[in-house]
């Protein structure tokens, strides 16, 4: 009986959360059916069936998170599976109680030889209980589960060292340390456990001193936790469980801030020509086309300017810098539970209306949680526009491994000196955050100045 595994649905995904099962136990599954919706670090994706047969068992309930490759369901009528299902879970009685009047209850769990009954299971389906079936659970302490989820560790991948194989805090801490060691080239390895201490093991005194470092880090965290606990105790807080998006966003932003040395360049753009141009385009497009937004114009401008300054269209890759031949621009979209960055691919070769159309579609999908892997991957540069939110000016955190991100403020009336005279203009702040490992100030400045000029003469974008 084939198992269905958590698929890999994004390049950075480590685990997926079942946000909704679209099929129930007992449903007949055909190849290509959508079984469930899965929330990854980036989006809500569809879990597609590659198998056929009845859905025998759901292993991960809604809300459950498992790593890539972990079984989430079983499809098929293999003998023994059924027995396991009915007796191993609490649904046996419920199934009978829930049977529709006049319809014979589903025969008890006698292991039927695999005679596929094409119709019976479908008939029986409504009689199935609607609650999800409890999954196989590895023994794990509540604390280890909480720590694991806080640190984005998939507990089911750990081997428990507690009694009866229980996963305990120590196991999770080791897993965190292991994971943190890998990218942590700038930091000394954490030695949370003696066995992880340096093999040189000089004198006991020295090793004790070594152990102090993580311990101090520990203390800071403990201090934080104490604060948190104080607030919790006082009933001053409400606990909001992390969604996958929020968790991954958090982790990646930390990674970015910790590892990419940011610096910032800001310039003010006279937005009047841009706004006028936008108005004109929209009037011309009328009913026929999409409404072009400032963001769309900026994406278009960036795409053009990135062609001019290929150094900026680059990524940091630890041992080298990668310059991208194609220009894929990510647009940061705020969701209730995190930030998501769908990508307009090959923005430099698209027309403004194409970009507009695509960007709007992506934003809608993002809000619906329906972005596909392709729509999320491959960005080489990102634009984040908080102008619509009334923000004058801000700095953005780089979306690694990209080299830069553009933060766009609101276009606002401001005193400007025009032709030696004080006048009221409409100004917009652009701030470029740059990974100093990839770019230097002058290169960034050249790009930003080019962008500014382009935006102030928007006609150049379309000619």
């Amino acid at each position, binding site marked *: 009986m084939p198992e269905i595994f958590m698929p890999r649905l994004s390049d950075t995904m480590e685990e997926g959360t079942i946000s909704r099962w679209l099929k129930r136990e007992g449903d007949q599954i055909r190849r290509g059916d959508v079984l469930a919706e899965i929330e990854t670090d980036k989006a809500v994706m569809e879990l597609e069936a590659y198998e056929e047969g009845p859905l025998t068992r759901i292993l991960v309930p809604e809300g459950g998170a498992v790593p890539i490759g972990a079984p989430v369901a079983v499809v098929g009528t293999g003998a023994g599976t059924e*027995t*396991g299902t009915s*007796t*191993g*879970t609490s649904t046996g009685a419920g199934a009978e109680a829930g049977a529709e009047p006049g319809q014979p209850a589903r025969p008890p769990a006698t292991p039927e030889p695999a005679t596929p009954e094409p119709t019976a299971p479908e008939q029986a389906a409504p009689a199935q209980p609607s609650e999800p*079936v*409890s*999954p*196989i*659970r590895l*023994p*794990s302490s509540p604390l280890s589960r909480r720590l694991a989820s806080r640190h984005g560790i998939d507990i089911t991948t750990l081997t428990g060292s507690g*009694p*009866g194989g*229980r996963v305990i805090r120590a196991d999770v801490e080791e897993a965190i340390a292991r994971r943190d060691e890998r990218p942590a080239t700038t930091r000394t390895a954490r030695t949370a456990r003696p066995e992880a201490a340096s093999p040189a093991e000089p004198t006991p005194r020295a090793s004790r001193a070594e152990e102090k470092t993580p311990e101090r880090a520990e203390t800071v965290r403990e201090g934080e936790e104490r604060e948190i606990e104080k607030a919790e105790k006082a009933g001053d807080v409400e606990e909001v469980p992390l969604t996958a998006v929020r968790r991954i966003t958090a982790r990646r932003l930390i990674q970015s801030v910790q590892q990419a040395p940011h610096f910032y360049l800001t310039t003010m753009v006279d937005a009047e020509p841009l706004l006028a141009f936008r108005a004109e385009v929209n009037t011309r497009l009328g009913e026929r086309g999409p409404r072009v937004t400032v963001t769309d114009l900026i994406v278009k401008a960036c795409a053009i300017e990135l062609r001019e300054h290929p150094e900026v269209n680059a990524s940091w890759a630890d041992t080298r810098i990668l310059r991208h031949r194609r220009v894929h621009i990510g647009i940061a979209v705020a969701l209730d539970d995190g930030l998501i960055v769908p990508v307009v691919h090959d923005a430099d070769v698209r027309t403004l209306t194409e970009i507009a159309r695509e960007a709007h579609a992506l934003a809608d999908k993002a809000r619906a949680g329906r972005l596909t892997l392709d729509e999320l991957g491959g960005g080489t540069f990102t634009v984040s526009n908080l102008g619509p939110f009334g923000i004058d000016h801000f700095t953005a955190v780089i979306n690694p491994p990209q080299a830069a991100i553009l933060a766009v403020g609101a276009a606002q009336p401001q005193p400007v000196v025009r032709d030696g005279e004080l006048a009221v203009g409409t100004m917009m702040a652009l701030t470029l955050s740059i990974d100093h490992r990839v770019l230097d100030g002058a290169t960034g400045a050249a790009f930003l100045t080019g962008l500014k000029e382009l935006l102030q003469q928007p006609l150049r974008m379309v000619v």
Partner: protein
Amino acid sequence: MVANTPGPASSPEPGPAHGARSDVGAVRPPGASEDAEVLRGYYRQMALIRAFELRSAEMYARAKIGGYCHLNLGEEATVVGLMAALRPSDYLFAGYRVHGYALARGAEPGRVMAELFGRVTGMSGGRGGSMHLFDAGLRLLGGYGIVGGQLPPATGAALAIAYRGAPGPDSEAVMCLLGDGTTNIGAFHEALNLAAVWRLPIVYAIVNNQLGMGTPVEAASGEPELFRRGCSYRIPGERVDGNDVLAVRDAALALMESAREEHRPGLLEAVSYRIRGHSVVDPARYRSAEETQRVRDLDPLPAFRARLIEGGVLDQETAARIDDETERTVTAAIEFADTSPPPPVDTLFDGVYATPVPNVFTGLPGDPPPDGQTTVTTLGES
């Protein structure tokens, strides 16, 4: 004899060995009808109790005995007299001051001492200690440590007798011992009332040693003539001199007889005096020196001895020999107790239920649950 009701209608005809009853304080020579051997037997029992209790105090001081330890010192005449009125087929319920009764009822001194020592050979297997002596064979159905605790169960034992058999000379009966202070507890009144309305074969014997711990009877009882407390329930009550073994015996016999033959409850008050503190650890400072001296003068053991010598039943030499014998008996009892093992620790849970009960989630303190796992951690696993 003082009685608040006329004696039993048919005045009991005591057996040949039993004389008339005494008045409080009177010490009269043994009647001609008393069998000399029986009298010497009473003396032997009283001497045994005295020796046993004195050595018990010593053993307590030597930390061989733990917990509470209440002695019958000064009550020997009462103890022996009451027990002399019982047949082997009668049942006895007692308070926590119970060593002497067990001995007089015929318990092996070694087994009594072994219980005090907490040894497996003790009367209650070492589990009850001084206050909780029990011997089903002797129909000693327990010493009870909770004041008044014995009264309702004793009453129920009498109910069982009445339930199973008619009154008559061969009927069994119950004697329930209690202290003077115990007459103030609710259970006393409830038990007496039940015995009266159900007409049960039971004699409640108040051992009035004039103190309940440090409280004199007059301070604790609205009616200090305790035998009168039966009035409310129309239970005939009598008071006798508890220092006179024969008087106690005879009064008890009479009441036991009406209990047997008429299934009529009785209330007997035997007045003696507690020679020492409430328990071995009580220095009894609340008693004045004069009082203590007066008490010693009333000591029933030398008095009975003198009386027997005076009456020619006992000579000095025999008396000394008996005293020696009892000393040796008690020494042997101590040796027996001391060489007996304590109950093995792995029998801790034995005997708690009559039926096999998986009583214990854990064995010893902090033990994990029986399956060796601290908790069930796997859910939904088939």
